[in-house]
């Protein structure tokens, strides 16, 4: 895949995300219209989408979206999959010739389950360890197969991305043919890292997907930290670390999502000094334990998993983020106009504070294998947090 080094003119990627808390499906056109409202925020060197709920017929299987330069690279991937997985279905990801999209790589998707061998089979099959198995498999392919990358690996979700403007990438992947209950979208303006198909957002692992506007200047620190836990960064772009940090902190270490967000964008020490116990100890512990997970530099991110959508800013808000709601629909974007383009009359519009996560989860038991990472009642901390569902008592009042 060709790697394009951008001119450093100006920066400002665009983000947009939508979730319906009742799991109602949203057509692809909706997210396309929203991200295209922010066309000026990109420069044609990358765009992408993540969609949740698009493969209900294979909802029990991990779906690997594979991007490959050559037939041989695809073959190499398939050989690994044949050994490591049960494959229930595979197909070309439908694309169409699109003006402006030049020499795209090949795209295929594989619906798989881990294939354990020997004793491990009895221990691991059907358990949460399947996730670890898949992470290891994705890392292995991305690291060892030349010219092929797994660009998404979750169940009932997928990432679609490449070099182009968001309308071109959407047209290329025929996204108007998909409907999802969560969508995120990205319009890229690469500044410090190359524009190439693998470097477009979203970045994913399992069903985590993330789109990002900004620069992670702590990339080196974060990357080395993640390597200790078996995550390998192969996509030449700073944002990749965030996807793996989310998986490590939230899924593997079991942090409630608010605390994981705090680790990524922690309060300043001077703010912690003014806190009361037990909050002071919680924040101190998070900063001490997860110092190497802190994201330095400007960012606004949207990340999603099969049960929710989260928006988060860096701790001094150097990139924009706006949120809105209407009924069961929640919207987050770089610009209010991107929300109004698809929801002209939201009930509420607000700008989250620096470091304040906006967490919107599906209502309980909405989809199969639904993940929830709120992990109980909201933490009693003064750092602002905006979450849906609210605490149980407040939800009843609503």
């Amino acid at each position, binding site marked *: 895949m060709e790697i394009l080094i951008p001119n450093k003119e100006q920066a400002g990627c665009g983000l947009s995300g939508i979730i319906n808390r009742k799991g109602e499906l949203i057509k692809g056109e909706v997210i396309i219209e929203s991200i295209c409202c922010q066309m000026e925020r990109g420069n044609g060197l990358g765009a992408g989408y993540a969609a949740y709920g698009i493969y209900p017929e294979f909802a029990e299987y991990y779906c690997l979206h594979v991007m490959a330069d050559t037939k041989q690279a695809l073959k190499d991937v398939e050989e690994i999959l044949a050994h490591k997985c049960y494959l229930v279905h595979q197909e070309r990801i439908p694309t169409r010739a699109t003006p402006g999209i030049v020499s795209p790589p090949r795209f295929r998707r594989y619906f798989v389950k881990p294939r354990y061998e020997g004793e491990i089979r009895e221990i691991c099959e059907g358990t949460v360890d399947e996730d670890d198995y898949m992470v290891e498999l994705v890392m292995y392919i991305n690291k060892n197969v030349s010219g092929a990358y797994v660009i998404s690996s979750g169940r009932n979700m997928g990432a679609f991305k490449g070099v182009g403007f968001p309308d071109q990438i959407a047209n290329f992947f025929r996204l108007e043919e998909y409907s999802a209950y969560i969508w995120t979208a990205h319009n890229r303006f690469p500044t410090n890292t190359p524009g190439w198909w693998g470097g477009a957002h979203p970045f994913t692992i399992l069903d985590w997907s993330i789109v990002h506007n900004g620069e992670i200047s702590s990339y080196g620190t974060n990357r080395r930290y993640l390597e200790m836990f078996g995550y390998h960064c192969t996509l030449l772009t700073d944002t990749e670390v965030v996807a793996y940090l989310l998986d490590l902190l939230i899924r593997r270490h079991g942090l409630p999502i608010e605390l994981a967000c705090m680790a990524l964008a922690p309060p300043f020490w001077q703010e912690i000094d003014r806190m009361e116990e037990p909050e002071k100890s919680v924040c101190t512990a998070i900063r001490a334990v997860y110092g190497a997970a802190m994201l330095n530099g400007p960012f606004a991110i949207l990340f999603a998993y099969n049960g929710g959508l989260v928006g988060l800013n860096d701790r001094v808000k150097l990139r924009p983020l706006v949120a809105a709601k209407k009924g069961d629909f929640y919207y987050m974007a770089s610009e*209010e106009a991107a929300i109004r*383009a698809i929801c002209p009359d939201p009930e509420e519009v*607000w700008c989250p504070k620096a470091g304040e996560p906006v967490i919107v989860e599906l209502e309980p038991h909405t989809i199969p294998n639904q993940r929830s990472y709120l992990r109980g009642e909201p933490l009693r901390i003064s750092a*602002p947090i905006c979450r849906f569902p609210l605490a149980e008592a407040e939800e009843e009042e609503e």
Partner: protein
Amino acid sequence: MAFEIDAKDLHYRELNKLIRKAVAEGHKHLILKNVNGQRYIAAGVSAQIDIDIYGVPGLDLGAFMRGPRIRVHGNTQDGAGNTMDDGKIVVEGMAGDVVGYAMRGGKIFVASDVGYRVGIHMKAYMDKVPVIVIGGKAGDFLGEYMAGGVIILLGMYSRYPERPIAGIFLGTGMHGGVIYVREGLPETQLGAALQIEDINEEDEKILRGYLQEYCADLNYDFNEVMAAKFVKIRPQTHRPYGKLYAY
């Protein structure tokens, strides 16, 4: 007679072309309908005209402009009034980050809240004194690197009851100008080398002047606005960082 432009599906270049054409033809009152995200509206326009905007204008509304009076019937996005030289922007809703960036004249009146780094690097010279009045609350870094001009923060008409009236690092690097805050604020929100003072008669006069105009524009009750104590925040010296690199 007002000149109306339907901005629906117009790119900002086309919209601005239409605006410039209308101004050149001598129209004094423009109404922009269905605006959504178009950048640089009225940027660089140098004329005494009124512009009513319906919808959400995009980034850098009124950048570099000299003279137009813009009224936004809703919210506006980041960078409104970027380096504006003269004129007025009245926002009936909220405004985003870096509003009034490097502003050097004119007025920005916001009915409700504003985002981060509002009034960053405002400056004044002789009779050119830029003014920002905020009816709601402000994010961090209000008046960062401020070199001149006036910011008035009311905190009265906010959608964020849980937030402090201003975020932290207020006036960081400020070395000129003045920030007035209704009902005051804790020193923890301030950047370094600033002082909070009581207002004097001169300040009172300045406040009454600007706030009378602000309340008239936004239909707020002037007496209610003035019914609380204001404090003023200024740099301790005009060169607070003069010795920072001197060792």
